[in-house]
C-alpha cells in the first residue's frame, strides 16, 4: 500500500506556515477579538463583554489618533524623501571609487547594525540640551550662547527624530542604489554620451529608469519600517513633549500599557496595520510595474 503523501512544496512550506500561524496569526486573531471588547488589563473579566464596533467608532472620531496618524505620514514622507535623495547621492559618490570601495561600503553599512533602541539612546545623548554633542559644538563655535532645547520643544524634537531616522537608514537606500549602479551595463551610458546627452539627461533617461526597481525595494522595506516606528521615538521623546511627537505606535503602546485600555489599543493597532498593509500593497504594485518596464527596456 502506498501512503498518501503531501506534494513537496506544501511539505516544504509547512514549517514556515505553522510557526507564523502560531506566533503571528493566532495572537492577531486574539487581538482582533479583544478589539471588540472594552478589555482592560486591570479588569480581566471585561474581555467577555462584546461591544461590537464601539472601539472602532471611537477611533474615527478620536482626534489624537488621526493627529498621530498624520504625524506618522509626515515622518514617512520627510524621512523617506531625504533618505532617497541622500542615499542616491551617497551611492553615486561611492561608485566613483574603484579602489577602497569595500571599506567605503562597510562604513556605509555601519548604521544598519545599530539596534533602533541604540540609535534612540545615542541621539538622545547627542541632542541632550545640557551635555549633548550638538549643543556643546554649537556653543563652543559661538553660534549660540543658550542651550537649545532639542528634545523639549515639539518642532525641534520632531526634527531630531527625523535626523535619527535619516542617519540610521539612509544607508539602506545607498546600498540598494549602489548595487543597482554596479549592475548597470555600460553601453547605454556610452551610447547616450555619443548621442550628445548632457549628464543630467543621461541620468534622467538612462540611469534612473534602471535604478528605479532598486530604489523601490528600499522604499518598500523602509516604508514598512517607518510605518511601525516605535523604538527610536519611544526612547528619544516617548511621544512628548505633551504628545507633540506622538506617532501611531507610541500612541497605541501608551493606550495599551499606560492607560491599560487593551481593547481600544488593539482596535487602533488593527486600523494602523491595515493602513500600512495598504501602503505596502501599493508599493508592491509599483515595484511590479517598474520591474516590467525594466524587463521590457533591457
Amino acid at each position: 500500500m502506498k501512503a498518501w503523501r503531501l506534494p513537496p512544496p506544501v511539505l516544504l512550506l509547512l514549517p514556515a506556515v505553522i510557526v507564523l500561524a502560531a506566533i503571528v496569526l493566532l495572537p492577531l486573531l486574539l487581538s482582533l477579538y479583544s478589539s471588540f471588547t472594552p478589555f482592560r488589563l486591570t479588569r480581566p473579566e471585561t474581555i467577555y463583554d462584546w461591544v461590537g464596533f464601539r472601539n472602532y467608532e471611537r477611533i474615527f472620531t478620536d482626534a489624537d489618533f488621526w493627529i498621530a496618524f498624520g504625524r506618522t505620514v509626515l515622518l514617512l514622507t520627510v524621512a523617506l524623501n531625504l533618505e532617497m535623495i541622500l542615499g542616491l547621492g551617497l551611492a553615486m559618490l561611492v561608485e566613483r571609487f574603484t579602489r577602497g570601495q569595500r571599506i567605503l561600503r562597510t562604513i556605509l553599512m555601519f548604521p544598519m547594525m545599530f539596534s533602533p533602541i541604540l540609535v534612540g539612546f545615542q541621539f538622545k545623548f547627542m541632542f541632550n540640551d545640557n551635555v549633548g554633542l550638538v549643543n556643546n559644538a554649537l556653543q563652543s563655535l559661538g553660534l549660540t550662547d543658550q542651550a537649545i532645547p532639542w528634545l523639549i520643544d515639539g518642532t525641534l524634537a520632531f526634527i531630531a527624530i527625523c535626523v535619527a531616522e535619516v542617519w540610521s537608514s539612509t544607508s539602506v537606500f545607498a546600498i540598494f542604489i549602489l548595487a543597482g549602479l554596479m549592475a548597470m551595463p555600460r553601453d547605454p551610458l556610452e551610447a547616450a554620451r555619443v548621442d550628445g546627452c548632457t549628464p543630467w539627461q543621461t541620468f534622467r533617461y538612462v540611469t534612473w529608469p534602471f535604478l528605479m526597481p532598486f530604489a523601490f525595494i528600499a522604499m518598500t522595506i523602509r516604508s514598512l519600517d517607518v510605518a511601525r516606528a516605535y523604538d527610536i521615538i519611544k526612547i528619544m521623546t516617548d511621544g512628548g513633549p505633551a504628545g507633540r511627537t506622538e506617532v501611531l505606535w507610541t500612541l497605541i503602546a501608551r493606550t495599551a500599557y499606560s492607560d491599560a485600555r487593551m481593547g481600544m489599543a488593539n482596535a487602533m493597532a488593527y486600523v494602523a496595520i491595515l493602513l500600512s498593509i495598504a501602503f505596502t500593497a501599493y508599493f508592491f504594485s509599483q515595484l511590479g510595474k517598474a520591474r516590467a518596464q525594466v524587463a521590457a527596456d533591457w
Partner: protein
Amino acid sequence: MDENATARLKKTASNWTLNVALFVAMAIICLPGLWIVLNSLRPTVEIMAKPPIWIPQSLSFDAYVAMFSGIGEGGIPVISYFRNSVIIAVTSTIISLAIGMSGGYAFARYRFKGKGGWFLGLMLTRAVPGIALSLPLFFLYARVGLIDTHAGMILAYTALNVPFTIWLIDGFFRQVPRDLAEAAQIDGCTRWQAFWQVEFPLARPGIASAGIFAFLTSWNEFALASQLTRSTDSKTLPVGLLDYTAEFTIDWRGMCALAVVMIIPALILTYAVQKHLVSGLTTGAIKG
C-alpha cells in the same frame, strides 16, 4: 591652450569637491559611533563638564570593569544579559534558517497554486510590528508558561525572521541554475542528494548572509523583548540598556559602554557578510 587648461582645472576642482563631499558624508556616518566609544572611556565628570571638554584628559576602562564586576559594584548583570542574547539569537537564527531554506527552496524550484499570494502573505506578516504582537503574545505565553523563558523568545524571533529569510534564500536558490541539479539527478542522485551535494554548496554564501541578517534582527530587537522578559533568566542586552536609566537621570558612561559591547559582535558579522547581502536582496528585485 587656455581653454584646455580651464577645462582641466574645472575637472580637478569638481573631483576634489566630490571627494570632500564623500569624506564629510562618511564622517557624519561614523561620528555618532565614535562619540559613543569615546564617552565609554571618559569619566562621568568629564562628560558632564560645562564648558565641554573636547580633548579627553583621562581615558580608562573603568566603565567596562564596573559593568562586568556584577551588581554590587554599581554594575548590571551584563554577563547574564549577554548569555541570554547569544543563546536566543543563535538558536532562533538556526531554526529560522532551516525553515527559511525549505520555504525558499519551495518558492524557487516548484510551481504551485497561489504561489504569488502565499509569498505576499508571508511578507505581509512583516507589517505587524513587535509592539502589536507583544500584548496578545503575552497572553498566550502566560497561558502556556513561556513568559520569561528562552524558548518563548526563540519562538517569537523565529517567527519574526522567517519571512525575510525565505525572501533572501529564494533569491539565492534562483541564482543557482536549475540544470545543475537536474544533471545530478540524471547521474543518479536523488533530489535530496542533489540538493545537498550541488545546490546547497552553491547557495551557501547567500544562506550565510540570510543567517547573519536573522541574527542581527534577534540581537537588536527591543519591543517584544521588553514585554516578554521579566528577569535575568531571559532579559536580553537591548532590554538591559534600560537598566542605566533612572527616573530623571541616565548613566551615560555605563550606557555607552554597554552599547559598545552590543555593537561589536554585530560589526564583525556585518563586515563578513556585506557583499552577499546586497546581491541577495537585489536578485529578488530584478529577476522576479
